[in-house]
């Protein structure tokens, strides 16, 4: 039990981070049909905000507040300069955001260098109950992720904004006729999606090594989670993230990281192929 418990916690914290990343992707994909290949880089930039603030000497918690603001603002710029012009060409958004991801990655290499950086843990202690002990920060990380995921769900299911957003997803033309400014909804959904990525990157920065290539390692599992879970309902992300993240981490512990990665990708591809609407059903993407 004492051996199993940390593993379960590790797996859960990975799943929660994956869900955070995937949730941002999903909002953008579900809402606008835009595949944002630069999402992993926005996640990475969130982590680099922490690196930069640490260099300046600002406290960790200031970074947690600033990272989503900075990355969200970057999202606003990206939406206004790039995405807005290619809404109607979904396949081209893959390519254009791919070019953007290459450029962002290289920009970070030029600013911070290609080597990996580390962010020191804001809280050092661990929680100890009997013989069992677990790093405190990881528990804080998990709690914050749960709160964030909950807040996002609340935003999209319980508020006026969420109602309008879901109207735009379901019937864009009808929603526009009823006076909803769809372009504005697209813009703010994109900003929320990117801010989530930035915050996820900032939160996870102390427990991973931060390097310019880290985005891809979350982007592809993030997409697979969405497609496995189903691109329709928000809850699909939870299921997809749990399948992709859970299988990956458990197999990495039991067999090897390589076997885990290959198995997860193959399983995900099979599920997507055999059930394109995802485990949770929902409409099929265009």
């Amino acid at each position, binding site marked *: 039990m004492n051996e199993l418990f940390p593993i379960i916690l590790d797996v859960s914290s990975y799943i929660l981070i994956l869900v955070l990343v995937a949730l941002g992707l999903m909002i953008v994909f579900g809402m606008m049909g835009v595949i944002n290949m630069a999402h992993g880089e926005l996640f990475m930039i969130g982590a680099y905000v922490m690196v930069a603030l640490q260099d300046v000497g600002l406290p960790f918690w200031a970074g947690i507040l600033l990272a989503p603001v900075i990355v969200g603002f970057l999202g606003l710029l990206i939406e206004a300069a790039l995405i807005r012009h290619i809404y109607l060409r979904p396949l081209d958004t893959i390519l254009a955001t791919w070019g953007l991801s290459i450029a962002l990655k290289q920009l970070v290499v030029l600013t911070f260098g290609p080597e990996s950086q580390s962010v020191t843990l804001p809280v050092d202690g661990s929680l100890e109950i009997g013989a069992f002990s677990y790093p405190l920060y990881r528990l804080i990380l998990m709690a914050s992720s749960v709160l964030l995921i909950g807040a996002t769900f609340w935003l999209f299911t319980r508020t006026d904004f969420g109602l309008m957003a879901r109207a735009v997803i379901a019937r864009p033309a009808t929603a526009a006729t009823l006076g909803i400014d769809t372009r504005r909804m697209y813009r703010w959904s994109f900003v929320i999606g990117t801010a989530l990525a930035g915050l996820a990157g900032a939160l996870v920065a102390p427990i991973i090594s931060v390097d310019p290539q880290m985005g891809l390692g979350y982007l592809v599992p993030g997409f697979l989670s969405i*497609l496995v879970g189903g691109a329709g309902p928000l809850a699909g992300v939870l299921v997809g993230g749990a399948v992709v993240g859970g299988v990956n981490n458990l197999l990495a512990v039991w067999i090897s990281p390589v076997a885990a990665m290959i198995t997860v990708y193959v399983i995900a591809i099979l599920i997507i192929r055999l059930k394109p609407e995802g485990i949770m059903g929902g409409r099929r993407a265009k």
Partner: protein
Amino acid sequence: MRNNLVALLIFAALAASPLVIGSYWTGQLTAYLVYGLLAISLSLVWGYGGILCFGQAMFFGIGGYIMAVLTKGMILPDLTSSYIGLLAAMAGAALFALALGYFLFAGRGISGAYLAIITLAITLVLERLMNNWYALGGYNGLLNVPPIKLTFFGASFELWDRLPTFYAVLGVVTVVYFGTSLLLKSAYGLKLTASRTHPDRLSSLGYSVLSIRLSVFALSAAIAGLAGAIFVTLDGFASPTLIGFTLSTEVLIWVAIGGKEMLLAAFLGAILTRTAESWLSEIFGNYWILILGLTFMVSVVLLPKGLLATPLEWLTKGKGKRSG
């Protein structure tokens, strides 16, 4: 007709270029021609077939590894003929594409964005697999792949020196280019266009969309496999990078910048981007990749047909006419 004339002029210029550019650049250009071949294969499947493949390098890598394994005599020590290696590389890549294509396209099938994500994931899996497949060299790859050995009527000749290698590769590229162009002008090309733009109408006319998709996927894979097989003999080694993610996305960028709906533009896109890269990366250093990424982004948004295809189309078709 004018289309072929422009292409002929370009290939003639390529054939004459070793006179001007010297030995080092001839060697470089040989490699770029092979990349151009890969770009042709992607243009065929993506621009004409409408299948956005984010993992075109997997076929390149499969061809490369098959060539390396066979000509090094790792399976059959007596059978190391380059011809058999090249044929097996093409056949192997095509068979893999058929199997993968059947899995992806049969029945309800996968298309569009889902296809891009899945092919990307498959490439990542294959790259990881090759990195850990120790019988095939693992991370280090296979070294000492022999150069291509041409034998005809008992005489044999190794493609070792730069100039003969260049012309042999140029010959292959020319044959593939004009062969593919002819094929695209035939009834098959018409069906291919229809399978991209109006698959439902095509199937209601009694054609099998699946078999058209499978055939173009396999043909494109065979060309990519051929390119990979030639490539490993140039440098003498096959490594997991051939099969992987980086090359897959690079070829996508060349083809998008050049123009995916025009074989010639895609081919030149690869050659010119590589040439620009080796010149400009010296001048701009690390900024080059930044410039490349931004150029790619801007060309997708502003010139979805491609940076090169727009002027080339004007040259080949004249004003006012559209390509079919």
